[in-house]
């Protein structure tokens, strides 16, 4: 499991993570908001996503990022949401899903 070395702003609102395996991943901020791991956004028992794209303001972006212990970050969002702790595991697993999410955005 790699761990992040640096977390930077990419473009206006996106989050770039430099991992210690020399990979750099750019996370679209809306993608991260939609994948918020907190109990309000994800059903704790079934794992089903509760937060839906249509529920968020058109422009939703991070206002602040803080580290939590040595294992996660907490992202404060422009829609006043901040309860999700994004662990290194979660963020690393999400990296593999970015392309699919982007593909789904394009009109088919």
């Amino acid at each position, binding site marked *: 499991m790699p*761990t992040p070395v*640096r977390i930077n702003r990419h473009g206006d609102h996106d989050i770039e993570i430099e991992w210690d395996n020399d990979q750099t991943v750019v996370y679209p901020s809306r993608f991260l908001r939609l994948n918020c791991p907190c109990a309000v956004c994800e059903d704790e028992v079934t794992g089903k996503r509760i937060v839906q794209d249509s529920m968020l303001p058109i422009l939703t972006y991070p206002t602040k990022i803080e*580290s939590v*212990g*040595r294992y996660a*970050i907490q992202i404060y969002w422009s829609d006043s949401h901040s309860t999700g702790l994004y662990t290194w595991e979660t963020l690393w697993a999400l990296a593999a899903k970015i392309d699919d999410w982007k593909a789904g955005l394009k009109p088919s």
Partner: protein
Amino acid sequence: MPTQEQVQDALREVIDPAFGKDIISLGFVQELKIADGRVALDLQIVRSSEEANESLKQQVERSLQGVEGVEAVAVRLTSNARSSGAPSDQGALPGVANIIPIASGKGGVGKSTVAANLAVALAQTGARVGLLDADVYGPSIPMIMGATEAPERGGRGILPVTCHGVKTISTGFFTKPDQAVVWRGPMLSKMLTDLAHQVEWGELDYLLVDLPPGTGDVQLTLCQQVALTGAVIVTTPQPVAASVAQKAIIMFEQLKTPLLGVIENMSYYESRTTGERELIFGAGGAAAISKKWKIPLLAQIPLATTVRETSDSGRPIVLEDPEAPASKAFVEAAARLAAEIAMKNANAAKPVEINF
């Protein structure tokens, strides 16, 4: 002029006999400076034995003098520990280099006695040490450390009480002896963060945190809101204690808090009259944990009436009877712990840098 590599290589040949490792790997070399033919460095010491420290210093000097181009060597002994994180780190306490929770799964394994003796043993090496008693329901540190005065206000809030060279704070200082604390979880978390952040610790090399038993609110809050160096697990040899101790280990692993070592308390009882050893709580509990989780076994502390007596009288045994087997085991545990911390901090990955 000697190169950095030449000097490092010479230092790598200096082996600390107590640990069987070289002083560079152990992280004992700080502030290495090379200018022309002069080499200066700070050598961290983890023992109070002047003889052992002086002998190590002489070894360093000899080894460096053998390097081509070295004309003068200046070695300064220091008991200051390297810090585990950046001061700007979220959750870092200003001035506190290392924060070390002392935890156990099960209660009654002697966690507070171990924490108090480790703190005093570390202070005896010249290190600046703090002890935070986070056991809100059953604070025993004031009694064990013999704290009689109440803390005063000052600085950022509260001034710790200095007992036997250790800056001590306990929730017990703020409640009356005949009062019980009957609180729910959220109040516990608040109390702990208040205590950690509002106490004027000053400069500390080590802050030991005596945790209550279990894996609940207090432990979770500490791991999430304070940047910890790593935890020490206390257990007895008894399988029931060792198995519950593993729950604490799993909790720290989940919260990405490193584990610095395991200490086995009440390892054996040595009869005062016959000298015969009796394994009252069985054997092998801590060794099994150490092997399974790859955590160093820092020491095995014997069960002794004097340990109990000194804890109850407010003068930890490492002070009261330094020659007792239990004292020697505590001193050994403190030295090993300091070495583990030095090693970890010298080779640690930096905390994540956030530029957002």
